[in-house]
Structures are given as structure tokens and as C-alpha cells.
């Protein structure tokens, strides 16, 4: 039941926040913030209460579960369940939800009610995606989270917002429909084999499929997740959407929405189609490497700060894809840490860029420069998160990418070498960012207010989390462990002959 609350709280609060805004914008913001904080507290409480035995959970055991029939004529159930992986991702979702509400405090003035309605509903949709264990429910939530996101970009975005929003919507819809066809094929194949109509995740695992069919169905799922991730060459929606979205929208997109793609690969593609995924791995790995290098290269070429950060996401998510398809426990753990750390570091980067834009009304590097002299706290935080993004040891991103590289090296030193080049490239764009925006002479005579108390609290909290992830990631790894073991069993199960 607690899982239903996690989804219902943002949904209900969104409606209330939407209506009260006419009377008081402040009330709308406070209600949204309260809902996010409550969700965060619940997920942290769940984590604390279960931490002692979380790593001992065996297969098919959930931390919490909710399962009732929904549309029984199709065998659809409203089945939510939580394991370590979803717990961590839900916690991240609410953490970034708090950040999104706070960062919009001063930025959003028009349509405040509808803004918070959309923001809370997209959060609810993402939480539902992380918790759904019925494939119909999963697809339902998957599609549902798009619409509020679309509105966030199309209404409160920047100059080319409509173009970016429509592009985002079309890309994700087309790939989502392919996943729907794949889900249905699996559903009917399961019925043909067992005589039972069900969308239940745990039952669909192990559905016998002809190798050819399994490959096609796997590709259907993969299409949806690869577009969301985004994987090169399906990433072209991302720079537009990230750049045009309002700050909160960019935070949710980069920090959470992209992670649903990675989550889908871990939760569905590998366990449901281990053999097909194994056969497909070389292609996915090649595309991951291409994405790492291409993203880093393009990031270096950007002069728009938001666009730069957006392309770094393509590069970092390439590491996630690489780790997942290398498939060794080390690499998968690394991919997962990267998911969490990237959510925090890139989310905060977007917030900082948003703060710069709010003060200077530009995101162009050429018009910035020398900000350190006038806003040292803002610039200092910027440097901190740029360093995190380029993989400074001691911060979360480093741990994730290091583990992925370590796992990759054991399988293929060649691939690891290419990926390491990507890490090197990240130094170029990172230093360019710092040098052009924060250092140098203040040629434009900027006089900016430095970070306010609210902003310091926000950015400081993110720094602490990132440091904690970098210095002591063991609690996260412990929590993820049962999921990782489960993955290992299905992927490396008897007779799979998966390379190690």
C-alpha cells in the first residue's frame, strides 16, 4: 500500500497545487514542495527500515508489493513492487523533485498552478515506471509521463520550445509504440506456451520464444529504451529538448527521464531476453562507444551552456549502456552508480546554468566570462560539478565510470581503451566550460548577485550527496546487490555461455 502512496501523493498534490494557484502562488509551491519532501522521507524511511536485510533478499522477494486485478479480461493487474534498484531510483526521483520545485521558485511566474500540476504528474509517472511490475501498467506509465513533460517544455520553455517539445514527443511515441507491439507479441507467445493471458513480469520471464522472434521482440523493447537513454544515433531529440526546457524540465529530463531508459534495459531487456541481448551486445557496445565519443566531441563544440551539458549526457549515458551490455557484475554495478551520480551531477549542472541564465539572460559562453569575480559561490559550485562530470576521483561519477571501465577491461581491453578516450575528451569540454564561463577577464562587466540562501542549500545538499557517493558508495552497492545477483543469474544462467 505504501507504494500506492508514493504515486498517489504527487498525483493528488498536483491537482491541489493546480487549483490553489489562483488564490496563492506561494501555496501552490509549498504544497508541491511538501509532496516531494513527503515522498522523499517515505523512500528514505523505507531504505533505512529495510537496510539491514536488503542485501539478503532472494529472488522474487520484494521490499514492498501491491497487487490487485485491474482489467481482468486481459489478465492485467495493478502490480507495483519494489526492490533495491527501484528503491534507489525512487529516492533519486523525489530528491530531484524537491530540487525541481525549489529551482522554479523564482523562475516560473506564469501559469504557476498548471506548471506544478505537470511537474508533480511527471514525477508520479516516473515513480510508477520504476515500480510497475505488470507490463501493461509499465507501458501505461511510460506513456503517461510524456504528456506533462511535453507541456513543461512547450509552455515554459525557451525560444524554440514548440519544435523541441514536438520532436521529443514524436521520438518517444514511435519507439514506445514499437515496445507496445513487442509487449503484445510476448503476451501472446506466453499464452501460446502456457494458456495463460498475463502481463505479469515474473511470469513472462522465461517465456519460450524462437530465437528469431526473441531478437525482434527484444529490439522492440530496446528501441523504446535506446531512444530514452538516449543511444547514438537516436539522441537528436535530446539536445533540443534539454536546451529549450525550463530549468526544472531539464533537471527532470536529464536526471530522471533518461534513467527510465537505463532502468528498462536492466529490468526488462536483460532478464526477459538474455540470449537475444547477448547476441545483440556487440552492436550495443559499439553504439555505446560511438555515443561516448560523439557526445564528448559535440559537447566540446557547443557555445550554448545548456546544449553543452546536454551533449555530456549523451556521453555519460553511453557509459551506462556500455556497462549494461558488457554484463559483468562489476560493469553493471558501475552502470547503476553512474545512473544515480549522473542524475545528481547533471541535474545540478542544469540548475547552475539556469541560475546563470536567470541572472544574465544568456547561455552563450561568448557573452559570459569572468563570473568568478562577481559571483564566486556560483562559479565555485559550477567548477565543482564540472569536475564531477569529468570524473574527478572522490565524486560519484568517478566511481561509476571507473567500475564500468574496470568491468569492460576484463572483457575487452580494446573497448575499454576507446571508452577511456571518451573520459579524456570530457576533460576538454569540462575545462572549456570553466575557462570560458567562470574564469578570464570580466569583459562584459557582469555584476551579479551571488547564490541566495535557498540556492546554497540546494546546491550544497547535492554536493554532499555526490561526495558521499564518491567516497562511500557501499550502501548503494549493497542495496543494488540483490538486483545485480538476480540479473547475473538470468544473464549468466546455466547454458548461457555468457562471456565473463
Amino acid at each position, binding site marked *: 500500500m505504501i507504494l500506492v502512496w508514493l504515486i498517489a501523493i504527487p498525483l493528488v498534490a498536483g491537482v491541489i497545487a493546480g487549483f490553489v494557484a489562483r488564490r496563492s502562488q506561494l501555496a501552490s509551491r509549498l504544497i508541491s514542495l511538501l509532496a516531494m519532501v513527503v515522498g522523499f522521507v517515505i523512500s528514505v524511511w523505507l531504505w533505512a527500515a529495510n537496510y539491514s536485510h536488503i542485501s539478503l533478499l532472494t529472488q522474487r522477494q520484494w521490499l514492498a508489493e501491491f497487487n490487485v486485478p*485491474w*482489467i*481482468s*479480461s*486481459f489478465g492485467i493487474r495493478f502490480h507495483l513492487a519494489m526492490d533495491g534498484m527501484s528503491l534507489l531510483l525512487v529516492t533519486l526521483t523525489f530528491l530531484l523533485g524537491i530540487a525541481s520545485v525549489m529551482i522554479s521558485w523564482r523562475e516560473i511566474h*506564469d*501559469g504557476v498552478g*498548471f506548471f506544478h500540476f505537470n511537474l508533480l504528474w511527471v514525477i508520479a509517472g516516473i515513480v510508477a515506471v520504476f515500480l510497475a511490475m505488470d507490463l*501493461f501498467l509499465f507501458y*501505461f*506509465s511510460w*506513456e*503517461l509521463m*510524456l*504528456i506533462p513533460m*511535453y*507541456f513543461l517544455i*512547450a*509552455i515554459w520553455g525557451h525560444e524554440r520550445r*514548440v519544435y523541441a*517539445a*514536438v520532436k521529443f*514527443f*514524436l521520438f518517444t*511515441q*514511435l519507439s514506445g*509504440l*514499437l515496445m*507496445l*507491439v513487442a509487449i*503484445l*507479441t510476448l*503476451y*501472446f507467445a506466453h499464452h501460446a506456451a502456457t494458456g495463460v493471458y498475463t502481463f505479469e513480469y515474473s511470469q513472462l520471464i522465461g517465456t519460450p520464444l524462437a530465437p528469431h522472434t526473441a531478437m525482434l521482440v527484444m529490439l522492440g523493447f530496446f528501441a523504446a529504451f535506446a531512444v530514452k537513454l538516449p543511444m547514438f544515433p537516436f539522441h537528436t531529440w535530446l539536445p533540443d529538448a534539454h536546451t529549450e526546457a525550463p530549468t526544472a524540465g531539464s533537471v527532470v529530463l536529464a536526471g530522471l527521464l533518461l534513467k527510465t531508459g537505463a532502468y528498462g534495459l536492466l529490468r526488462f531487456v536483460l532478464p526477459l531476453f538474455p540470449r537475444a541481448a547477448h547476441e545483440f551486445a556487440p552492436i550495443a557496445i559499439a553504439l555505446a562507444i560511438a555515443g561516448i565519443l560523439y557526445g564528448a566531441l559535440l559537447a566540446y563544440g557547443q557555445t550554448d551552456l545548456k546544449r553543452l551539458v546536454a551533449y555530456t549526457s549523451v556521453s555519460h549515458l553511453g557509459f551506462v549502456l556500455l556497462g549494461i551490455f558488457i554484463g559483468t557484475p562489476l560493469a553493471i554495478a558501475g552502470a547503476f552508480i553512474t545512473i544515480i551520480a549522473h542524475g545528481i551531477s547533471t541535474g545540478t549542472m542544469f540548475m547552475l546554468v539556469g541560475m546563470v541564465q536567470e541572472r544574465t539572460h544568456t547561455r552563450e559562453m561568448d557573452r559570459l566570462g569572468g563570473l568568478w569575480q562577481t559571483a564566486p559561490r556560483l562559479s565555485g559550485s559550477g567548477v565543482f560539478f564540472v569536475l564531477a562530470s569529468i570524473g574527478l576521483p572522490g565524486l560519484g561519477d568517478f566511481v561509476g565510470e571507473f567500475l564500468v571501465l574496470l568491468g569492460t577491461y576484463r572483457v575487452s581491453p580494446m573497448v575499454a581503451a576507446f571508452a577511456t578516450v571518451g573520459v579524456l575528451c570530457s576533460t576538454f569540454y569540462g575545462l572549456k566550460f570553466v575557462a570560458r564561463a567562470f574564469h578570464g577577464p570580466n569583459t562584459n562587466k557582469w555584476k551579479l548577485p551571488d547564490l541566495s540562501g535557498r540556492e546554497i542549500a540546494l546546491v550544497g545538499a547535492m554536493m554532499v550527496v555526490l561526495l558521499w557517493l564518491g567516497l562511500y558508495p557501499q550502501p548503494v552497492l549493497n542495496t543494488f546487490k540483490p538486483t545485480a545477483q538476480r540479473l547475473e543469474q538470468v544473464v549468466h544462467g546455466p547454458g548461457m555461455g555468457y562471456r565473463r
Partner: protein
Amino acid sequence: MSSADFVALLPLIVLGATAIVVMMSIAFRRSHALASTLTLVGLAVAFWSLWPAAGEVPRQVTPLLVIDRFALYYFGLIIAATFAVVLMSYGYLERHDVRREEFYVLLLVAALGSAVLVSSDHFISFFLGLEILSVTLYALSAYLTERGIALEAGMKYLVLAAASAAFLLFGMALVYAETGTMSFPQLASDFAAGGAAHLWVLAGIAFMVTGFGFKLAVVPFHLWTPDVYQGAPAPVTAFVASVSKGAMFAILLRFFYQSGSRDLHATLLIFGIIAIASMIAGNLMALFQNNVKRILAYSSIAHLGYLLVAFEAGGLFGAAAGTFYLTAYMITTLGAFGVIAVLSASGRDAEDIEDYRGLFWRRPGLATVFTVMLFSLAGIPLTAGFLGKFYTVAAGTNSSIWVLIFVLVATSVIGLFYYLRVVVALFATEHIPSDAERPLPVVPAMGGVTLGVLALALIWLGVYPHVILHAIQSAMSGIF
């Protein structure tokens, strides 16, 4: 005829009687309120009479009509949709300086025609029902005689519907000439014995497909649709798009399923081609429109293409998927044209996409309803349109008709593009016209409530479709 026959026919009788009562009342006293109230009461009684009628099903009443669960389900749909059309017509007609009362008589007769159509299992009743429906629709399309465009719409509809009826009749005649029967069940036994392979029968079915194609407005028989949708008054367009097409789809299911001619290779091939052409052409042509009524007209062509995918999938699954899709589609089109109807001033209908720019910030309730409708057309979750698309794709996947499924997937993404254009206009934040530039009429209370109910129905079906799915699945027993 026994009393049980009359009970089974009760919905039809009530509909016919209401039309007469309203006509008589006009003869005595012209009152818009009275005529519309009588109509609503009559429709409510007709809806209630479905329950006594359900006690007598399935029942063959005369060789012409069969009252079974299938027919009753569609009766329910037709009556409920007509009820909604009446509610939204009241405010619309109030703004127009015409004789308003006859509108309701025509609407009731059209509903009667549709009901006859869905319960017919004989060529004669099929044709009678069709003509009752069509003739009233000519008059309804041209009802606002002061508008040239409405007259044009009525005229176009008259010519094309007459032509399609001629095709249909000729096809029926050919089938009759070869088989010697006009009843669907007897045709089924004749076809099963191999009669379907005969050249005249095939030619007859081909002519009938043409007739069906015109009425359903699928490519290449769709040319009348945009003009009629644009020219007819918005509530009439709502009726044409929902009830008329819905009844036609029902008789399509019944005829081709019951007579067994669905399973002919030629039928499947021709409908497959029509479905693909409709999905592609409808969606592509809608991209280039700036008139909301025309966008919806072209999108309806595409949606009929999706419905034909369910028809192609076949079996109980396909028929049920088609019926569910149609139910969702009827609610959606009623809602969409209802929004147009309540926003339309006396001079012209609110059909330019510019009429909707920034509507959300001026009339949030209406804009929300319209957004729900558009999302349902686009097949987005929480709406019935999503489940309809899901059901159709499921039926298609089950039957492995991959080409049709992938065309459906690809074209519905194209479809999203123009639905989003309207949504973008609704939520636009710049260049919002002021009340002086584009005054917004006061939303009539009844129309507003109807739209709210339609939107809630759509979401209810999209979230908890259990009841209606159950009803549809048992209704399909009628044609199997």
C-alpha cells in the same frame, strides 16, 4: 407477432413514437424548450427500454430484423450519442435564427434509421435503415440554410450518398440474382456450400464494398468528408462522425461476419488495402489543414482505417476490439465537435485553428476537455482512445497481420503531429487574442455539462474499462 416481439422491438418503437410526438407538439405549439425536452425524455425512455428488450434476446423479429446483444449494445451507443448531440444542439441552435424544432425530429428519425441498420440481417432492412439515415442527414447537413457552405455540404452529401446507395443496391441485386436469398444467415449457408466463389457474388460483394466505403468515408471513397464536416453545423457533424459511421461499422461487422464473406480472400485483401490507404492518406492530408473541422475530418478517415485493422484481425477478438475502439471514438468525436459547437458564434463555427490559440488561459475548462479529446484521438493513456488502440494492436498482433500493424504504428505517429498542433495552439502563451478581437460566446450550461460528462466517460473507460469490456464481449455473441 407476439408480445415478446414487441418488447424486443421496444427501443425502435420508442424512437419512432418520440419522433411523431415531437412532430405533433410542433404542430400545436412551437417551443424550442418543449421540443428538446420531449426529445430527451423519449431518448431516455428508449435507453431504459433496452433492459426489458434484453430479456428477450436473441430474437428474430420478422425475417428482417434480429434483436440480439450485438444490436442492443449498438442501440445503447446510438441512443446515448444522440442524447449528447441533442444536449449540445440546444445552445447551438439558440444562437441561430432558424426554425429550431424540426431539427429534433430529423435527429430522432436519423437515430431510428441507425438503429434499424444495426439490427438488420436482411438486405431489405439494411437498405431501408440506410436510406432513413441518409435522407435525414441531407436535411440536417443543410439545416442552416442561410449559410452557403451548409447548402453545399448537404448537396454534396446527397449526390455521393445516392451514388453509394446505388452501388450498394446493385451489389445486393447481384448477390441475390446468384443465390436467391437476401437474408444474412441464409447467405452464410449458401456461401459455406461454395457459392461465394461465383463471379457474380464476388462482383456483388465488390459493389457492396464500394457502398460501404462511401458511407464509412475510407480512401478512395472519402472525398465528401472534409466538405461535409466543414459545412454542416457542428452538432450535425458530430452526429455524422459518431452515430452514422458507428452504425455503418456495426452493419459492416454483422454482414461480413454473419454471411461468412469476411473470410473470403478477396474481401480481406480489398479491406486491407483500403485500411492502409486510409491510414496513410487520412493522416498525411490532415497535416496540411488549418481548419479544425477539416483536421478532424481527415483524422476520421485515418480512424476508420484503424477500425478496419480490427476488422481485418477478425475473430471474436477483432470484432470486440473494433467495437471498443468505435465506442471510444464516438465519445471522442462527440466531445471534440461539442467543443466546436459551444464555441461557435451565430455567424460562423469556431473552426479556424486561430480560434483556439491560448484558449487554455481564457477558458481552462473547455480547453481541458478538448485536450482530453485530442489525446484520446492520439491514443494517449488515461483516455479510452489509448485502450482502443491497445486493443486493436493486440487483435492485430494476435492475428499476425504485421503489415497493417506497422502501418498503424507509423501513421499514428504522423497523426500525433497534427493533434499536437491543435494542443500547442490551445496552450499557446503568445499572441493570445483578446476578448475584443475574438470574443468567446458564453458556454451554455447544458453544453458545458455534457462535455464534462463526455470527458469523464472517456477517462473512466481509459482507466477502468472492465464493465464496458464485459458488455462488449458478451455483445459479440450476436454475430458469432
